[in-house]
C-alpha cells in the first residue's frame, strides 16, 4: 500500500487556512480507508546501521503549541499562538517555529502517538524503552540497546552513546554497564565548557600523565595471574585511559574548534550548543547521541515559558524559539555536511498536554495524543503521519503507540525489532513486543503525502 504514495505531490495554491485543513482532511480520509495490515505486511527493508541523535524534550512538550496546532478550535483550546504555513503546502505548525517551518520538507511529523501513561516516570520509561514499566524487569532504553548491539569500529575510542549533559530518564535497564552512556555534564553554551574529566587535572601535564601510566604498569606487571573476570574491569580502565589520552576525543568534544558563525547558527543557549556538539560527535563517529532538553512540563503560563523565556522579553528566548533555532540549524547542518542520510534525528517527549488550558494559563499532562518528529536516515520527509481530532484530544487516524515508534526507530537504525536480548534471569526479551514499525517512515516509501 505504501508504494502507492509515489503519486506526485499535488501543489495547492496558497489556500485559506480553513480550506487547506479541509483538503488535508479529505486526503487523509481517503488514505485512512486503506487497510493498515497491508502496509505492515511489507518486508522490512535492509538498512545500513545508522547513527542517531535523540532530542529529548523532557516534561511533555505541548503538541498544540508545536507540531499539531489547532487554530480553528475554541479559544480555550487553541492557545496563545497561531499556526503558520510551512515549506510543505498543507502542513502547518506553530507560529513559534518559523525556522522549522522553512525546512519541513525534511521532516516526518507524527501527530497520533498515544499512550495511557500520564506520569513522567512511567511515561518516560514507555517512550524510551518501548515497554510500559514493569515491577519485574528494568527494560533498557533505545540508546542503551543501540550502544550495546552496534559493533564498535576497529579504531573507535569514542563511546557508543554520549548523553548531553546527562542521560535523564534513559537508562541501561538490565543491560550491563557497557550500555551506559558517557555523560558530558556541564553546559556547552558556557565559554569554559569542558567535558568533565577528559582534561588532565590541573598541575598534571602530559609528561606527568605519561609517568603515571608507566607507574600503573608497574602494579599490573607484578600482579599474580588473576581470574579472567578482571578482564572486563581492565577493559573499562583501558577505554577510559584511551579516551583521556586521545587528542581526537578531546577534539570531538571541543566546541572551540567550531567557527563563530557555526556556533551562532545554533543559537546561544544550552540546547542549541548541545545540538552543535551532537552534530560534532556524530561526525567523529559516535553512533548515538542524546540531548536532554528539560523544562517542557509547562503547567503554567505558556507564553512566558514557551515564547518569552523571561517576563518583558522583546525577543522570545523561551523553549520554542530555542528549540526552533537549534533544530532547524541541526538539520541544515547535517544536510550540508552530508550526514543527514546516515543520521536519524528524533525529537519527542513523554506525552502531550491538555487541550483545554488550565486556570494558570498552562496545560497539564495529556498522553492520549501527542506528537513526535523524525528526520534523516532516509525517512521520507514532508509528511504527516496520523492525526488528532479537532481539539487535539484523541488520535483521529492511525493511532501509534510508543512501541510502534520504538520499533520503527530500531528498524531505521538497522536493528531487528524482534531481536532477542537475554535478561539476567534468563528471560528472552525482544527489543520490542507487539509492535509494528510505521511503514511510511521507512526508506523506500517514496515521496511526500500531498495534503
Amino acid at each position, binding site marked *: 500500500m505504501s508504494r502507492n504514495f509515489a503519486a506526485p505531490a499535488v501543489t495547492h495554491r496558497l489556500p485559506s487556512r480553513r480550506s487547506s485543513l479541509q483538503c488535508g482532511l479529505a486526503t487523509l480520509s481517503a488514505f485512512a480507508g486503506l487497510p493498515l495490515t497491508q502496509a505492515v505486511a511489507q518486508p522490512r527493508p535492509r538498512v545500513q546501521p545508522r547513527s542517531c541523535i535523540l532530542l529529548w524534550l523532557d516534561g511533555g512538550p505541548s503538541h498544540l503549541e508545536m507540531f499539531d496546532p489547532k487554530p480553528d478550535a475554541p479559544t480555550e483550546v487553541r492557545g496563545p499562538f497561531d499556526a503558520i504555513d510551512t515549506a510543505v503546502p498543507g502542513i502547518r505548525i506553530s507560529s513559534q517555529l518559523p525556522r522549522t517551518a522553512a525546512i519541513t520538507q525534511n521532516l516526518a511529523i507524527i501527530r497520533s502517538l498515544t499512550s495511557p501513561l500520564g506520569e513522567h516516570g512511567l511515561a518516560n520509561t514507555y517512550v524510551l524503552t518501548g515497554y510500559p514499566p514493569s*515491577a519485574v524487569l528494568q527494560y533498557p532504553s533505545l540508546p542503551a540497546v543501540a550502544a550495546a548491539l552496534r559493533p564498535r569500529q576497529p579504531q573507535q575510542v569514542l563511546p557508543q552513546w554520549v548523553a548531553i549533559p546527562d542521560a535523564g530518564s534513559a537508562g541501561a535497564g538490565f543491560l550491563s*554497564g557497557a550500555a551506559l552512556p558517557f555523560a558530558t555534564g556541564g553546559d556547552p553554551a558556557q565559554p569554559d565548557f569542558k567535558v568533565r*574529566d577528559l582534561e588532565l587535572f590541573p598541575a598534571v601535564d602530559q609528561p606527568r600523565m605519561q609517568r603515571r601510566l608507566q*607507574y600503573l604498569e608497574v602494579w599490573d606487571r607484578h600482579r599474580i595471574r588473576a*581470574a579472567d573476570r578482571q578482564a572486563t574491569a581492565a577493559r573499562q580502565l583501558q577505554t577510559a585511559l584511551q579516551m583521556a589520552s586521545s587528542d581526537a576525543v578531546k577534539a570531538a568534544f571541543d566546541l572551540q574548534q567550531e567557527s563563530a558563525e557555526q556556533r551562532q547558527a545554533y543559537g546561544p543557549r544550552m540546547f542549541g550548543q548541545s545540538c552543535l556538539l551532537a552534530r560534532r560527535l556524530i561526525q567523529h563517529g559516535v553512533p548515538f547521541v542524546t540531548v536532554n532538553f528539560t523544562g517542557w512540563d509547562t503547567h503554567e503560563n505558556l507564553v512566558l515559558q514557551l515564547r518569552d523565556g523571561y517576563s518583558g522579553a522583546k525577543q522570545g528566548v523561551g523553549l520554542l524559539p530555542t528549540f526552533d533555532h537549534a533544530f532547524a540549524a541541526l538539520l541544515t547542518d547535517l544536510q550540508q555536511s552530508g550526514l543527514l542520510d546516515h543520521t536519524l534525528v528524533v525529537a519527542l517527549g513523554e506525552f502531550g498536554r491538555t487541550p483545554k488550558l488550565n486556570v494558570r494559563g498552562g496545560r497539564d499532562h495529556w498522553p492520549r495524543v501527542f506528537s513526535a518528529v523524525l528526520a534523516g536516515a532516509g525517512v521520507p520527509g514532508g509528511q504527516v503521519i496520523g492525526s488528532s481530532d479537532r481539539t487535539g484530544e484523541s488520535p483521529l487516524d492511525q493511532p501509534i503507540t510508543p512501541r510502534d515508534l520504538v520499533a520503527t526507530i530500531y528498524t531505521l537504525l538497522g536493528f531487528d525489532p524482534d531481536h532477542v536480548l537475554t535478561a539476567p534471569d534468563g528471560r528472552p526479551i525482544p527489543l520490542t513486543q507487539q509492535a509494528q514499525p510505521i511503514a511510511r517512515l521507512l526508506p523506500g516509501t517514496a515521496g511526500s503525502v500531498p495534503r
Partner: protein
Amino acid sequence: MTAGHTLFLILPLILTAGQSQAPATQSADSAGDSAPAEIPDFQTQILPLLTRSGCNAGACHGAAAGRGEFRLSLFAADPAADFQAITLERHSRRVHLTQPHLSLLFRKACGQLEHGGGQILDPAGPAAALLLNWIRSGAPPGTPRTPTALIVTPQNYSATTIPATAPLRIMAQFHDGSSADVTRFCRITSTDTSAITVSDSDSVTVLRPGLHHLIIRYLNQTTLFRALVPFSPSTVPQAGLQQSDSLIDRHINQTLQQLALHPAGPAAPEIWLRRLYLQLAGKLPPPELIQQLLASDSPALRHRLVDELLASEPFTDYWTLQLARLLQLHSLPNEPEAFHASSVWLRTAVAEDRPLDQLVRQLLLASGDSHTNGAAGFSRMTADARSHAALIGQACAGFSLGCANCHNHPLDRWTQDDFHGFAAVFAPLDRGRMVQFTGRGSVTNLRTGEPATPRIPGLRDLSPDGDHRSAVADWLTSGSPPPLARNITNRLWKHLFGRGLIEPVNDLSLTNPATHPELLTALAEELVSCHWSLRAILRRMVLSETWGRSSATLTGTDLISPPDPSQQNASALFLACRTSVAVPAEVLIDAIADVCDIPPDLSPQPVARAVQVLDPARPAGELDLPGRCRTFSGCTLNSADSELPLSAQLHLLNGPLINSRISAPASRLHRLLQHGRTDADIITTFTLLALSRQPRPAELASWKQQLDARTPDERRLQLEDFLWSLLNSQEFRRIP
C-alpha cells in the same frame, strides 16, 4: 444459523452427556493410541500436549490478546476457558467431530493451513493421533483431575563419560489417588542446552561434565532432574579435601568430589584479612592487624579477628546499609523526620543484633507516627498495596510475585490469586505519615474483576476482613526452613561468595535450581537455630574453609590435563576457588579517603563515611559520580562484576577525588614526607594500607628504579604519581 451449525454446537453436548466419567486411570500406551478404547482426557492429556508443543506460551496463543483470534490461557492455567475456546468458539470449527482431520486445530497444528506458528505436529505422529482420537470421541471435557505430585525417574542421574543418555519416566499422582505416566505430556526445558538436552522421545543426553538440570513441568506441578558428570576420571587427591566438621565445607567438598573438581588452597593470610574487612565492614584492614596476622597466624587469632570485627561500629554501619537497600529505604519529599526515625531504628536493630525474624515482624506490623516510629516508616517505601506486596515478597522471601499480576507466573507456582491476594493484605493500610491499618481498602483481582481475597501466597486464603499482617509474619518465619531464613541465607551467601546458591537472588522459584540445595536448606535451618542472628550466620560463613580459599585455580601442571573453560567456570561456580569481585562505589570512596587520610565530602548528607549514606534519594557529594547505586528498587548486594561507568573511570583518573587528595598538604603522603621517611618506607606504608599486604621484593626493586628524583620537589611529585597509580590499580579496586 443453519441446521448444520446448530448440530455442530449441540453435538459435543450430546456426546459428552453420554460419557459420565472419564476412565479413572489413563495409562498411556507407548507411542500411538490407535485403539480408542481409552478416550484421551482433555485436561490431563490434550492440554499438556498443547503446552508441551508451545501453543499456549506467551509468544503464541497464550498471549494476553491471543494470536490469530485464538486465545488460550497461559500454560493451561484455565482449562475451562481453554475448553470453551477450543470446542465452542468460532462455531466449533476448531474441532470437527465427524471428520476430525478437518478440524482447524489439527490442520493448523500440522501445517496444512497457513499457521503463524508453523508446523507443530507431525500429522502421522502419536501426538496428532491422540488429538484426532480425542476429537473423534466427541471432544469431551473429561473429569477434572488435579495433579498433586510429579515424580521423575531417575531424579538424580550420574554418569562417568559423555555424552551420556538415559530415558526419562515421569509419573503424575492425582488428587483422586490415581496416577499416570505423563512423560510425553510434560514440558521439559534445559537450563543449558549446550550441556544437557532432551529428545522428542524423552530421553536426556548430557553433553558436558558438570551439574546440570532439566525443569519438568506438567500442569501445575514442577520438578527438577539433576545430572552430574565429573570432570576428570581420576578422583580428587584426598589431601585437597580435608575432612571438616564445618557444615558448609562438607557440602561444598562433597559436590567437588563428585564433580572431580580440584579445590584451590587457602588464600594467603593477608588476602583473607582484606576479604574479611571489605566484605564484613566495607573498609580496608588496619596495617597493624595485617602485620599481626603475618607474624603469627592461628585459628584462634582468626576467630578473635572475626569476633572483633563483628562487634565493631563499621560492621554495624555496613550492614545497616545492606539492610536499608534490601528494604528500599529512602527519604520521602519534605519528611526528613520519617527517614531519620527509620534509619535510626534500623541501625539500632543491627547494632544490637536483633533477631532477624523479630526485625521483619516489627517492620510488617508497625503502626503509628512514622516520624517517631521508625519501623512504621518502612511501610511507606512503596506507593500502593501491590508494590508493597511485591517488595515484601522480594525482600523477605526472595519471591518475584510481581510476575503474577496479569497472568499466573509462567515460571513459578504463583497464581494471580496469590499475587492479588497477597496485595489485598496490604490494601487496608494507610501509608500517610500515620501508618495504620484502617480496615478499608481492597485490590481488584485482575483475573476475576472482583476484590481479591486476602491470601498467603501458595498456601491459603484468609478472611476478607481483619489485619493479616501477623499471618504474613508467621508465614515468613515458620516452616522448614522458613522462607525468610532461606532468602536471607541466600543473599548473605551472595554477598560473601559473589553468587547466591540460587541466582538471581530475587527469584527463589521452583524452576531455579540451587547449586547446593541441601546446603541452602541446612544453612537456613542453622540461621533459625542461631536465633536468627545476622552476626552468627556471617561468622559461620567466613570461618569456613570454602570462604577462605584462594582465587587462583590450580595450574595445569597439577592436573592430568589443563582445565578447559567450562571446568574453570565450574570451579568458580562450585567454589573450588574464589572469584574476586569489584569493590562497591561507597567502599571505594571510603578506601581512597582512608589511604590519603582526607575524609570524603558527602554533603548534603550529614555523615562522615560513604557507607553511612543510607538515602539514595538525595545527592551525596563525591559519592554521586563513581557509579553510586541510586535506584530505589535497590541494587543486588555486591554484584560480582559491577563495572564502573566510563565517566566514573575518568573521574577517578582525572577528577579531584583522587587527585586533590594525593597533593593536599594535609594528606598522609605529605605528612610522611615531612617526617623524613624514605621511599621504601612510604611505598611499604601505602601498599599495606591500600593493598593490605607488604610490597614484594620485585616491586620494591621496580620502584627503586622508577623513583629517581633528584630534588625534593621532583620527589614529591613522583611520590604523588606513585600514589595515584596505586589508587588506580586493578588490585586496589578488587576484593580478592
